[in-house]
């Protein structure tokens, strides 16, 4: 008689501290020893991690609110942007290296290309590409409406932008920059390529998920969400697209023929609205944070119940895996930052 072992893993708290601001965004350094944290009131923090402790220093300010932080892959530099429109580049010690101010509009999104060569930013209707020292490389013609999200594909060749009316993809092959529209008449809030680069997905204000098969351009829509879909994450093997519908996790299965006509995998465990979710990079563990002050760990496709759950001290606002998939940083509304390590039991 053989016994199938249920995969089991837990989250182990490895450090926590309280920052003096609401946590909006978190970015890990490549070596996982540092984190940049964006504060909702405008502060930018650099957090250093050691074996036993976390230490933080306030290093910058974006008037009115910081909106995004992004660590440059393979490097010790990171960028922040905010409601003051400014884009700021810091070094590993938190010293200011360069700053740009594209306009008066908010710079809502930052995305480094996977090779770390260029930084894409979205300021109002305008997308810009910057070389690593914040020298402008290319400014795209303003789009029809404000950009809400940016996402690179894995090779770093295509940059997707979400806006009202669909997605726009810029193929970045300087000096050529080609544009392709993926039209969908709804306010689109996210833009995410699958790691396989086969699919491009978006979540919308009116409660749908829309995606395109990139090889053919064919598109498909998944309805039924009770409200806006503003968070999504692809599993490392591109099998699942995780989204949230209030307190339920809704996973669309992109294996085989694709999710059309199928029912999604629905995971239950949270007792209140899910605020943030993230798949492990290159892996299949999923973490979710909900208004029930719970952080849960899942392995979709293998189990239907949470593998582990941790209580937070306030509403979780942001979840970010380290690039090596080993740690999860969780930011909370009251400024608490906690680092968990994924520990496999068997």
């Amino acid at each position: 008689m053989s016994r199938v072992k249920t995969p089991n893993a837990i989250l182990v708290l490895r450090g926590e501290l309280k920052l003096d601001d609401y946590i909006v965004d978190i970015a890990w350094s490549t070596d996982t020893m540092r984190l940049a944290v964006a504060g909702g009131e405008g502060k930018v923090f650099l957090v250093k991690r050691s074996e036993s402790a976390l230490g933080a220093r306030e290093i910058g300010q974006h008037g009115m609110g910081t909106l995004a932080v992004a660590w440059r892959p393979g490097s010790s530099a990171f960028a922040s942007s905010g409601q003051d429109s400014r884009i700021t580049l810091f070094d590993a010690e938190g010293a200011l290296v360069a700053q740009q101010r594209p306009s008066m509009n908010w710079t809502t999104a930052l995305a480094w290309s996977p090779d770390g060569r260029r930084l894409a930013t979205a300021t109002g209707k305008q997308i810009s590409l910057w070389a690593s020292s914040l020298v402008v490389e290319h400014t795209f013609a303003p789009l029809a409406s404000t950009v809400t999200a940016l996402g690179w594909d894995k090779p770093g060749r295509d940059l997707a932008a979400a806006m009202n009316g669909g997605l726009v993809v810029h193929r970045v092959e300087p000096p050529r920059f080609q544009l392709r529209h993926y039209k969908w008449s709804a306010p689109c809030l996210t833009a995410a390529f699958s790691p396989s680069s086969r699919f491009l997905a978006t979540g919308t204000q009116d409660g749908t998920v829309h995606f395109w098969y990139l090889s053919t351009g064919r598109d498909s829509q998944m309805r039924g969400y009770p409200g806006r879909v503003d968070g999504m994450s692809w599993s490392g093997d591109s099998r699942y697209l995780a989204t949230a519908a209030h307190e339920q996790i809704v996973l669309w299965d992109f294996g085989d023929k694709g999710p059309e006509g199928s029912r999604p995998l629905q995971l239950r465990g949270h007792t209140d609205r899910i605020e943030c979710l993230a798949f492990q990079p290159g892996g299949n563990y999923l973490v979710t944070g909900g208004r029930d002050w719970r952080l849960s760990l899942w392995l979709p496709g293998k189990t239907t119940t949470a593998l582990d759950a941790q209580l937070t001290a306030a509403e979780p606002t942001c979840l970010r895996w380290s690039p090596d998939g080993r740690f999860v940083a969780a930011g909370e509304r009251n400024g608490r930052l906690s680092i968990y390590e994924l520990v496999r039991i068997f």
Partner: protein
Amino acid sequence: MTTMDRVPVTVLTGFLESGKVTLLNRVLSENHSKRIAVIENEFGEVGVVHQLVIVAEEEIVETNNGRICCTGRSDLLRILEQLLKRRDKFDYIIETTRMADSSPVAQTFFLDDNFKQQFLLDATVTLVDARYIEKHFDKMTEAGEQVAFVDVIRLNKTDPVGEAELERVARQVRAINGTARIFRTQNANVSIDCVLDVGASDLQRTLAVDGSFLGPQYPLEWAGVYQLAVGQHTLRTGAEAQAHHHHEHGPGCSHDHSYEHKRGDNHDDHGDARDKSLGFVVLTVAAATQQTLAAAIEPPVRAFAGEAVTVARGGSLKVAPAQQPIDVNHKGNHFVVDVAAVGTYANFCEHAPAEFNLRTEGAKPIVQRAFTSHPHDEEISSIDISDLRSLETQKRNDWLSNLLKSRGTDIFRMKGVISLEGEARRCVFHGVHMILDGQLEQLWAAGATWRNTLVFIGRNLDREKLEAGLHSCLA
């Protein structure tokens, strides 16, 4: 979450930018302990130094969720989300919009469950310039919609607008939007009470302030009492008598002299094409007083309900409780009234006489009164319906949901207070077009009558159908 926990939001709208800015700066600089976040659509609107000011470029988006179409502002969505992150830093939000039609702003608050729970659209305030708005009411387009959507109207008087004209505009505004509170201002000077803590989303609160709009509507707009001698009296209409134009001034005069002259050339354009005749009744009354006039209203109201043959140009009018519509089609007409005995006589008119330059030769009204009239087709109007009996929740949901989906485009605003069977709390709801938000609020006050009251502001509204709909929801 109760209303008390939600952040009240005031929206300032209107054609006049300067009016909004003056009001905004006044609210921010006044000495009060209220912490206010401001969302403006242009840099420099806020003149005073203020902590929490966000500038946004207005972007309209349409969403379609389950056949409910909603127009909202995506920039506002982003800003509100960010503001929620610093929820403990402010008590109020003021948003300014350039658009006359403020429904996208209002609907934005309903677009998201989270927003519905965290924000309360407290009031939409507009500044209306009396002179400007009257010109545009004739066309019943943007001006009418601007007025229809709002909760608070600051009716601004600037020279040379007279009191009488202001009165007329106020009446026209009220005919469109019965629920709006009207503040008279001069040079946009008004207290912050019309901006903060207005509570306009709660119909009961609006009624507590001024329930007079829930009064009766009449089939006529004007009545005046004259002292007439025995003999034939001539009524004139239209431009023909411009050369002999004399203005009827009296103690209760409701027009403004300058206004008359401005409109002198356009009499042919007055009213709609279908207003080829003007409903008219002439009666004897006991005295030339407001009380007598009010007491005499019933027979003409009944008479207006009846069918009648239009009296042609040059025709004669009887003193009798009967409808005698007069032909106002031509450039100028005259009619004759035979008066058998000296005394006081009242003319009851379907529309305001000034619209047709209607006057009685040789006589001026001693007293006169304007009435809130029934809405015409295609006009924007307010309709209120009520019932003392409780409603059944599911039936109410079905009725309102179907109503908004089918008539949502024409229904601009809806507000109501409802009593549901088995529920001791009041249900307060308000809607903008197809979007509806309802909340169970506090308990009905001890001793209060549990009463359903709904107000609809919109175009082509059918009172009978709305009442039938309400009755279909009775428990």
